[in-house]
């Protein structure tokens, strides 16, 4: 079985699973875990967009 993911979709999938693990392991209560997981996911995806824009500006 071969999975074909674009760079962006691979980054989002990576962010999703890494955020779940970070949320569960780095915080104590369920609400804190959910909040921290969402925070990590936002940082991951935000970082992807930021890096994308930086690379696009450098390429010009």
């Amino acid at each position, binding site marked *: *079985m*071969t*999975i*074909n*993911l674009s*760079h962006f979709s*691979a980054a989002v*999938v*990576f962010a999703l*699973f*890494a955020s*779940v*693990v*970070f949320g*569960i*392991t780095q915080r*104590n*209560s369920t609400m804190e875990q959910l909040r921290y997981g969402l925070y990590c996911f936002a940082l991951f995806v935000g970082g992807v967009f930021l890096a994308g824009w930086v690379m696009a500006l450098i390429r010009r």
Partner: protein
Amino acid sequence: MAKPTTDKTTDKSRNAAAVTEPEYPLTTMAIVAPLVGWLIPGGGHILLKRYGRGILLLVSVAAMFLIGLGMQGRIYKPNGGDILDILGFVGDVGSGALYFLARIMDWGNVMAANAAADYGKTFLIVAGLLNFIAAADAHHIALGKKP
């Protein structure tokens, strides 16, 4: 005139004792839970009756590992020779039983040179590293440091 008898050093040591963290005795479960958690992702949490967290960890680590394999990611072997290969092996072996299953079934024994395969290799390594974090978390729960 005699000085007041209040001993400042005693007060300091009392305060230090109050600030010191409580001791967490090493129990059998604190050793078994991370080992099970390493071998079966999320297994340590399930063993400690944190079923929801355990299942989420299992799904996350296993999905990352399987997606990595699906993207033609490479599985590192222990005798890679190169230091980066050894580090890749350390990351991969973090997935526990998934790594051994992949080695037994000869999955991930590819040398594809494309971007997707490179992402796949990263997924495989990170799945293992995340599982190490999960196993350490199981250890802390078993010790009583974390609810």
